[in-house]
C-alpha cells in the first residue's frame, strides 16, 4: 500500500507538467487521450439526452411532449452525434490513443503533433455540428437521404454536413497515425503474431476508416453543392438519381458500423484473457477474423437497400456477402467463450461488461442475420427491428465494451482503483436497463412499427412504455460510472502497476505511466502472445 502511494507521487504523465496550456499543447498521446475522453463523454450525454426526449415522447401514441418537427430533429441529432461524435471516435481515440503506443512498446505514436491536431479538428467539427443544432437542428435523419435532404428539408443541412466533414478528417488523421505506429514502431521482438488482439482489431479498424471516410466526405460535398447550387446531382427532375446517394452513403456507412464494433471487440479481446488468466483461445483465428471483417465489410452495403429499387440480382449478391461477414464475428464469439473455459475466471467489473458484451453482441448479431435474409428483410426493413438490432450491437456491444475498457485500464490511466462494489451494481443496472429498453423494440419491429415515427397506432403503446422505462434505468446506469469514476480519480485507492496481473507491455509501466512510457525500450522475448506460462514468475501466478 505504501509502495503504491509512493509510486503514485512519482513523476508521471499527469503531474509532470502542470497548467492548462500544457494540456492544450501536449503531444503526449496519453494526455490527448484524456482530452478526447472529455469530448466524447460530453457528446455521449448530449446524444443521450436527445434519446431520452424521444423515448419520453413515445410514451404516448400521439404527440404530447414535442411536435413532429422537433421529434424529427431529435432523432436526426441523436443519430448524428452518437455515430460521428461518440461511437466512431470513442474507443480508438481514448483507449486506442492511450494504449497503442504502450502495447507496442513505443514512447508515443508515430506522429504526435498530428495526434494533437486531430483533437482540434474533432472539436472544430463538433463545434460546427453543435452550431447547426443551436441554430435549429437538422431533420433529415443521420442518413441524409436525397432528395429530401437536398431539395426539401428547410433545416441546417449544410452546416451539419460541414461539421461531419471536418470530423471525418480527425478520424483519418488518427487512423493513419495508428497504422503507421503499428507497422513501424513495435518494440524489438514484438512480431505480428505476438501482438495483443487489441492491436490487430484496432489496426483493421484503422484501415477501414482510412478507406471509407473520404467517400463520406465527398458524398456530403455533393449534397452540399446540390443544396446550394440546385444542380440536380440527386434530383430526378434534372437527370439525377437519388438512389446513387444511397449507394455512396452506404458504401461508407456500412464499413463505418464495423468501425464502431471492432474497437469494442478489441477491448473484449483483452479483458477476457486477463480475467480468465488464459491466453486468447484461437489467437490466429481471432486476429485474422478482424482483418476478414474489415475486408468483407466493404462488400455488403447494398443490404441497406434491398427494397430501395436495386435489382434482384444485386440484392442476392449483397445478401450472400452479408452472411459471409457474419462468419468471422461468430468465430470471435466462440473463441472468447472458449477462452473462459477452464480458465480462472473472476467477476470483476470489466469482466462483467465483457460477458454482457458477448451475450448482447450475439443477440444483435443473430438479428443481423435475420435482416440479411432477403425474404425477411422486406418486412423488417425500416422498422423498429432494425433499430433494436443496431442498438444491441452499438449499445449492448460498443458502449458496454467502452465501459469495460475504461474500468479495466482505469488503474493504469489514473493510478487509482475504482470502487468495485458500486461498479458491479452499475454494470447490472446498465445490463437490465439496456435489455428492457431494446428487447421490446424487436417485437415492435416485427409487428410492423416503422422507424422515425413521432406518433403511432395505439396497439404499440405498451411496448413503447416498457422501452421508455428501460431507458430511464439505462440512463441511471450511465450516470453512476460518470460520478464514481470522477470521485475515484481524486479519492480512489492507489493502484499497483499490474493490479489485474495481466500480460501486455502496458502493465509493465507504473500506474500512471511516466510521460515517455518506457525509460528503456522493452525487448519482447516471450515467444507467444498472452504468455502466462513464460511470465508465471513475474506475475506471481501458480
Amino acid at each position, binding site marked *: 500500500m505504501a509502495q503504491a502511494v509512493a509510486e503514485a507521487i512519482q513523476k508521471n504523465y499527469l503531474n509532470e507538467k502542470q497548467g492548462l496550456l500544457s494540456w492544450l499543447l501536449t503531444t503526449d498521446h496519453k494526455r490527448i487521450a484524456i482530452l478526447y475522453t472529455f469530448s466524447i463523454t460530453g457528446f455521449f450525454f448530449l446524444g443521450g439526452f436527445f434519446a431520452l426526449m424521444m423515448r419520453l415522447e413515445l410514451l404516448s401514441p400521439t404527440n404530447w411532449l414535442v411536435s413532429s418537427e422537433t421529434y424529427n430533429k431529435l432523432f436526426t441529432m441523436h443519430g448524428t452525434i452518437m455515430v460521428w461524435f461518440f461511437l466512431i471516435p470513442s474507443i480508438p481515440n481514448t483507449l486506442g490513443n492511450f494504449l497503442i*503506443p504502450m502495447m507496442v512498446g*513505443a*514512447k*508515443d*505514436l*508515430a*506522429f*504526435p503533433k498530428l495526434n494533437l491536431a486531430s483533437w482540434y479538428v474533432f472539436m472544430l467539427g463538433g463545434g460546427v455540428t453543435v452550431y447547426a443544432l443551436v441554430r435549429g437542428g437538422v431533420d433529415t435523419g443521420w442518413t441524409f437521404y436525397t432528395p429530401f435532404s437536398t431539395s426539401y428539408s428547410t433545416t441546417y443541412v449544410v452546416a451539419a454536413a460541414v461539421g461531419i466533414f471536418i470530423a471525418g478528417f480527425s478520424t*483519418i488523421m488518427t487512423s*493513419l*497515425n495508428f*497504422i*503507421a*505506429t503499428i*507497422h*513501424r*514502431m513495435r518494440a524489438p521482438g514484438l512480431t505480428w503474431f505476438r501482438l495483443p488482439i487489441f492491436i490487430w482489431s484496432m489496426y483493421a479498424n484503422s484501415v477501414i476508416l*482510412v*478507406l*471509407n*471516410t*473520404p*467517400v463520406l*466526405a*465527398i*458524398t456530403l*460535398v*455533393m449534397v452540399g*453543392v446540390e443544396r446550394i*447550387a*440546385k*444542380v*440536380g*446531382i440527386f434530383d430526378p427532375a*434534372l*437527370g*439525377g*438519381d437519388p438512389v*446513387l446517394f444511397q449507394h*455512396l452513403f452506404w*458504401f461508407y456507412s456500412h464499413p463505418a458500423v464495423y468501425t464502431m464494433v471492432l474497437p469494442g471487440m478489441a477491448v473484449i479481446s483483452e479483458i477476457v484473457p486477463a480475467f480468465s488468466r488464459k491466453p486468447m483461445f484461437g489467437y490466429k483465428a481471432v486476429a485474422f477474423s478482424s482483418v476478414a471483417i474489415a475486408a468483407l465489410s466493404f462488400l455488403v452495403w447494398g443490404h441497406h437497400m434491398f427494397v430501395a429499387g436495386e435489382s434482384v440480382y444485386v440484392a442476392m449478391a449483397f445478401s450472400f456477402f452479408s452472411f459471409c461477414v457474419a462468419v468471422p464475428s461468430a468465430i470471435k464469439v466462440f473463441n472468447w467463450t472458449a477462452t473462459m473455459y477452464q480458465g480462472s475466471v473472476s467477476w470483476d467489473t470489466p469482466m462483467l461488461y465483457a460477458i454482457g458484451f458477448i451475450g448482447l453482441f450475439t443477440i444483435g448479431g443473430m438479428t443481423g442475420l435475420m435482416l440479411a435474409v432477403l425474404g425477411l428483410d422486406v418486412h423488417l426493413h425500416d422498422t423498429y427491428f432494425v433499430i433494436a438490432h443496431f442498438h444491441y450491437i452499438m449499445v449492448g456491444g460498443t458502449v458496454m465494451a467502452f465501459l469495460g475498457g475504461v474500468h479495466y485500464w482505469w488503474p493504469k490511466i489514473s493510478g487509482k482503483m475504482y470502487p468495485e462494489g458500486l461498479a458491479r451494481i452499475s454494470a447490472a443496472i446498465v445490463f437490465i436497463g439496456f435489455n428492457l429498453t431494446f428487447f421490446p423494440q424487436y417485437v415492435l419491429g416485427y409487428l410492423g412499427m416503422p422507424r422515425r415515427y413521432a406518433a403511432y397506432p395505439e396497439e404499440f403503446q405498451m411496448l413503447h412504455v416498457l422501452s421508455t422505462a428501460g431507458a430511464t434505468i439505462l440512463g441511471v446506469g450511465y450516470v453512476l460510472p460518470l460520478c464514481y469514476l470522477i470521485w475515484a480519480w481524486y479519492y480512489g485507492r492507489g493502484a499497483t502497476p499490474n493490479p489485474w496481473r495481466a500480460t501486455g507491455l502496458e502493465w509493465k509501466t507504473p500506474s500512471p505511466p511516466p510521460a*515517455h512510457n518506457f525509460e528503456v*525500450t522493452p525487448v519482447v522475448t516471450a515467444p507467444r502472445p498472452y504468455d502466462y506460462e513464460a511470465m508465471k514468475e513475474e506475475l506471481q501466478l501458480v
Partner: protein
Amino acid sequence: MSKSATLACREQFRTPAQQRETASVGMWIFLANEVMMFGALFTAYTVYRASHPQAFDIGSADMNIMLGSINTALLLTSSLMLSFAEHSAQAGNRRLIALFLILTMIIGAVFLGLKFTEYYQHFQEHKAPGVWFNDSSPYANSIQMFFVFYFIMTGLHAVHMIIGIGILAGLLFRTIIGTMTAEYHTPILFGGLYWHFVDIVWIFLYAIFYLPGLHL
C-alpha cells in the same frame, strides 16, 4: 546535435531509418485515402456517363482541348522538376533543390492560372452549372450534370494543387534555412510524393473530361 539531425530522429523513434520508414508508411496510407476520395467522384461520374452518354459526349466536345493538353504537359513537367529537386536533395545540393522547387511551384501556378481562365471561359459560355447555366438543346440537364462533375472534380484537384504549392513553399523555406541535407530530406521525398499523386489524378481527369470529346 544539428537541427537536421534532431529532426531526423525525433523522440518517439529509435533510429532515423525507423523515422523515414514510418513517414513513408504514413504518406502512402494518406495517398490510399486520397484515391478513395477521388474514387467516389470517379464512380459517380461513371454512373452518370453510362446513363447519359450523348450528353456527356457533347459536354466533352465543348471542353477546351488545347488548354487541357497544355495543362497536362505543364503538370508532367512540374513533376519532372520535382524529381530533379528530390535528386538534388539526395546529393545535398541546397541551391539546386531550391531552384527546382521554385520551378515546380511556378509551373503549378501557371497551371492554376490556365485552369481559372478555363473556368472563366465556361462562365462566359453559360456552361457553369447552376444559375449561370444556359443551354437550349434537349440534353440540357445532362450536359449540366457533366459540368457539375467537371467543376467539382477539377475544383477539388485545384484545391489539392493549392495545398501542394503551400507544401512546396514550406519545403523551400526549410531548404533555404538549411534543415534539408543529404542525411535528412525525408520531407522533400514524401511531400514530393503528394505532388506526384496530384499530377496523376490530373491525368485521369484529363482522360475522362477532355479526351472523349476528340472521338478518337
